[in-house]
């Protein structure tokens, strides 16, 4: 699903990723951990191709960063759901339209859009709030709308960049349970986080970014 070979990225002469190798299989759940500024977001940007590597190749859902043309990138993004810490909802339209937008871009039929949006909203438990505007929702609810938008296309891969970063512990748990449920259905998930408590509570494979290198980490057994 994801394959990084020898990937390096620098910003203003400072190397953020240094010859990174990484792969993620279909249906896998992987945490990407590391302190703030370690390059987690840059790595995710490489994956949804908002950033090109200085060297090496990034392959995501069959798209190769060295070959993909600018106008092909939207089609890659339709195969990836992305969840952000700051939600990135379309503030000018209601919950239903936010989720539906991911289907409008694919040219789906009206009846199909309605059905799939309502299913996705039911999945995240927000069917009853479909006509609310984003600013009328709590942080946890907004993040659930983002998740509904990310999964409404049934993508094989979901990228989550600190999805619980702005949420209280209860809302964080709800989001994690939701992500786990989505993963159980076969969607591969790469989640960047620095919330080690959640990582412990919902164990999965962990990779850590440290000084530009990506290393596998074993969870220390406590208790």
């Amino acid at each position, binding site marked *: 699903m994801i394959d990084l070979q020898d990937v390096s990225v620098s910003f203003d002469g400072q190397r953020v990723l240094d010859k990174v190798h990484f792969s993620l299989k279909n249906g896998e759940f992987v945490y990407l951990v590391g302190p703030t500024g370690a390059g987690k977001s840059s790595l995710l940007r490489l994956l949804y191709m908002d950033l090109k590597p200085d060297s090496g190749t990034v392959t995501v859902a069959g798209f190769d960063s060295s070959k993909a043309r600018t106008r092909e990138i939207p089609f890659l993004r*339709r195969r990836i759901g992305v969840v952000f810490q700051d939600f990135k909802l379309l503030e000018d339209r209601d919950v239903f339209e936010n989720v539906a937008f991911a289907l409008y871009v694919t040219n789906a039929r009206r009846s199909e859009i309605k059905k799939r949006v309502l299913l996705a909203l039911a999945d995240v438990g927000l069917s009853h709030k479909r006509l609310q505007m984003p600013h009328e929702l709590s942080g946890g609810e907004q993040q659930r709308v983002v998740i509904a938008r990310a999964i409404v296309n049934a993508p094989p891969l979901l990228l989550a960049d600190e999805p619980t970063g702005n949420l209280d512990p209860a809302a964080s748990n709800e989001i994690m349970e939701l992500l786990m449920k989505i993963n159980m259905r076969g969607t591969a998930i790469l989640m960047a986080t620095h919330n080690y408590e959640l990582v412990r509570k919902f164990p999965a494979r962990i990779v850590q970014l440290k000084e530009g290198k990506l290393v596998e980490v074993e969870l220390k057994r406590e208790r």
Partner: protein
Amino acid sequence: MQVGYIVKEGFSGFRRAKLSMTAAIVTITISLLLLSSFAILLLNANSVVTALRDKVEMEAFLADSLTNAEVDVIRARIHAVLGVRDVMFISKDEAAKIFQEQFGEDIYRVLDFNPLPASFKIFLQDGYKTADAAQEIHAQVTAIRGVEEVIYRKGLLELLDKRVTTALAFALGIGLFITISSIFLVANTIRLAIYAKRKIIQTMKLIGATRGFIRTPFVLEGLVQGFLGGVFASGIVFSLFHYLEQWADPLSDFLTVEPVAYGVIVVLGCLLGFLGSVISIRRFIGETVVQ
């Protein structure tokens, strides 16, 4: 293409962004008003100049001793001069009548005899109402035997020739300036409106919207704004002229607006809105999702 979605989005500004929508429409209206009032003045200035040139006529005064046959010969010879459209004979009696109309007095009461010579009024063809052409015609007519003197408003023609060229160049410069300013002003207003939506544009890209998919509703919105701006500007121009015709009748002889002009204003509005949105959206759509 999701035609329904695009149309709905194109008109969504009326609901979601009333202020920036209004600002864009007002800007387009004002730009069009500036442009069209300038164009109307320029076009009408041209008709004023043409009217002035039309007033230029020559008059060839004849010797008193000519017979009717000789007058006919002179008429034919003047008619044959290149640039002469028509000639009209004014006899000594007719000249006396004109004198009476102009001065309110009978020339015979003043002088006992009529000193006014018979003459030919000479009307020039359209292309010959310039200082150079008129001088050439003047020379040829003066050379005809039996013609004593030829007069015309030489100074006026020279003035029109010289000043009109300068004025026209100046006016075209101003017109160009207004046009460019209008495009810049409209593009800037629309750019501000789109700038407010740049986060939304980035999110749309993130979700997998193609550039065309993001752009089309914005361009449609620009067209709608331009159309409305055009309709308002047309309406204002129409009302102004309607008012002018009612309250200042003599002015309306010089200032006329062809009905087709109202259509042109609306089309120009659409063009302004279209260009403004296409230019503005280009910048934001190329940005990366994460700044």
